[in-house]
């Protein structure tokens, strides 16, 4: 009896092993994709990963480590054990990673799909195409405020942010120099088109820090993208910088009394990079699929980041959940672009280290 049971069990396990074997081979057809987590990665999952898996059967493993993306890619390449296939990264770190040779150069026109009207990718993408970088969305870091915290007028310009007398309450800024220095100069009267010219000199950097000094005592510093909407909702601060997609989510989806201020929006490009040695046909297929005109437009149904292709813009429709018309919430909407600052990725790649050192020293003072 006992013996018979054992035999059956062994047979069963063996059979299961045999069945599992092809499944395992099949599962090896999988991609590990690193992104930022939160609502953003969710939008990618719905717009890219799920249709891609449906189309090809390739499983996608999500890793939410883009916050330390460059450090991760570098240590994996240095250790000779790269496990990430595609990494979502900002343009600045991508430039740096490309220089260091730890991510793959990409021939955009060969790999990516042309626009429906036949324009080549290098014509159709809005930003200039970097050597190793596939743009995906344009997103903005900008100011938002809690409209219930102001009795009179709501703030509308960067100068108002610096005006704590008329617009009381604490401010929340990101604990990095990028953005803060540009806005500090704008608050000090520099035109949005000239901030990088001024910042390029040592005097200009001093001017920016002097301007920041004026509100330093009123600032709560944030480091995670989820913090600013929370700080606004809790009325811990009255004005905060943050990612426009996060603010959109709090304002439209969660119905918080949060309003976005488009003056001085600092927009930059986010996209895909491929770590060294990972530019396989599978990865190429994924990049081609996920950055075609339709997919990029699809992502905007889930989050208010602007698609990086000209040809996607007309296809952006309504928000999937709330039915809100998305185009007024896009950083790429011409109305919102009037006083925008395109983030100078090359400037920050060059000067970022020393400005960060100085910024940290300034913070610690």
């Amino acid at each position, binding site marked *: 009896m006992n013996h018979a049971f054992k035999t059956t069990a062994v047979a069963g396990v063996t059979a299961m092993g045999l069945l599992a074997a092809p499944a395992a081979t099949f599962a090896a057809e999988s991609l590990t994709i690193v992104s930022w987590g939160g609502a953003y990665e969710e939008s990618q999952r719905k717009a890219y990963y799920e249709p891609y898996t449906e189309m090809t059967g390739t499983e996608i493993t999500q890793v939410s480590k883009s916050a330390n993306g460059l450090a991760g890619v570098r240590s994996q390449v240095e250790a000779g054990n790269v496990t990430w296939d595609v990494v979502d990264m900002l343009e600045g770190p991508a430039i740096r990673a490309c*220089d260091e040779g730890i991510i793959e150069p990409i021939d955009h026109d060969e790999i990516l799909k042309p626009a429906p009207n036949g324009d080549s990718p290098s014509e159709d993408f809005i930003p200039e195409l970097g050597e190793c970088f596939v743009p995906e969305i344009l997103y903005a870091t900008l100011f938002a405020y809690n409209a219930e915290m102001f009795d009179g007028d709501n703030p509308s310009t960067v100068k108002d942010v610096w005006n704590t007398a008329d617009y009381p309450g604490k401010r929340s800024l990101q604990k990095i120099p990028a953005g803060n220095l540009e806005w500090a100069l704008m608050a000090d009267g520099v035109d949005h088109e000239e901030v990088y010219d001024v910042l390029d000199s040592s005097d200009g950097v001093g001017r920016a820090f002097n301007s920041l000094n004026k509100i330093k005592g009123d600032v709560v510093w944030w480091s995670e993208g989820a913090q600013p909407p929370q700080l606004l909702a809790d009325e811990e601060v009255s004005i905060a910088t943050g990612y426009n997609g996060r603010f959109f989510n709090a304002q439209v989806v969660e119905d918080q009394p949060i309003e976005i201020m488009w003056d001085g929006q600092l927009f930059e490009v986010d996209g895909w990079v491929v770590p060294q040695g990972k530019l396989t046909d599978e990865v190429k297929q994924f990049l081609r699929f996920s950055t075609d005109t339709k997919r990029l437009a699809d992502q905007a149904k889930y989050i208010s980041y602007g698609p990086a292709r000209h040809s996607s813009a007309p296809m952006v429709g309504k928000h999937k959940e709330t039915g809100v018309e998305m185009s007024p919430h896009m950083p790429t909407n011409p109305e919102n672009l009037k006083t925008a600052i395109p983030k100078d990725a090359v400037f920050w790649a060059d000067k970022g280290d020393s400005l960060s050192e100085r910024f940290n020293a300034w913070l610690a003072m």
Partner: protein
Amino acid sequence: MAQHESATPAADDVMRAADGKPLKDSLRRSMRRAKTKALLLVAPLGLFILFSFALPIADMVKRSFYSPEIQNVLPETAELLGDWDGDGLPPEQIYATFAKELAQADENRNVGVVSQRVNYVMPGARSLFSGTARKLGNVDSGPYKPAMIEIDEDWGDPEVWSILKREAYPITMAYYLSAVDLRYNAAGEIEAVASYMQIYQKLFWRTLWMSVLITVMTILLGFPVSYLLANLPVRTSNLLMILVLLPFWTSLLVRTSSWIVILQSEGVLNDVLVTFGIFSNDNRPQMIYNKIGTIVGMTHILLPFMILPLYSVMKGIPPSYLRAARSLGANPVVAFVRVYVPQTIPGIGAGSILVFILSIGYYITPALIGGSSGQLISNFIAYHMQQSLNWHLAAALGSILLFVVLGLYYIYNKLVGADALKLG
């Protein structure tokens, strides 16, 4: 009988075993088996410590002064720069070699490794290198010196070359200098960095004094709790012990976040203070995202590390000591201070060492609720590991921290004696 005789000292004064072999040899042989067994038993742990602890630390210390990027990517240039006297601009030969190797590096796509390395000491070097490397493709023949100065006039700046010469040598103190707010100036002398760039000395001091403060706070808060634990009836003290250990079973993030709920300006504590009229509603004190937040959060999280050793020491102090002191005429305060407290010194010592060493390297709490003024040195090590990717500087900061802790431990050992430690 014969055995007895042979065990007595022989003529040569060597103690011998029954078989006439020297006693020492016999002893050694009989112990060898036991020793081998003991060694085999600890071997897995030894290997684990070697690979997870000793080697990474050795690698960190090596990284803090060994930085061979330029030598690796531009080997011939590095060698020529080493021989060059460093006066004015280098000769054409160096320009030519540099141009050749830079173009080669551009092809190998590792210019970034070098340019990033130089960018740390010379902001802007990144685009200087990569721009030059790209344009060198158009330069087919020498002389390279004017061609490179044509590409970017920085190549005609002697300072750029003296920096390159200095950074080309793989062993450098530059990271240690950065880690204490010093740098090499153009003449290669050590000088303080500009005052608006100084940060690390301040951070080391802040880390030290805040760790001392947190240690003192845990002593002040932990002592009464440990005393209760050691002296209450078992049932009550068991319950109290669970309350002490409860934080250990809760996620660090949850504990830290609950301090945000309590301490933030619209938080529970502030609401209470405003309700009782201690502060006006417009003038709520900032108790989080600054030093106060770090100190409160870390004191809370590290408290068990003080309580447990204190408790185990106090548990071993019989109540008769206090009674003896009372009967000898000491009032309760004198008896406590002169008789009880001195006997808890081993516990205070052990707890302090634990809390101090933990807090000196603490990272997560200051990162979450320390704001900018409550950041500790470990937050900057993490910053350089993950954000700026200046791993050499992170290694130098980490090494300094390691040496400081070892130094403090050495002093502690001299003063109190590590054998007096009682970790429970």
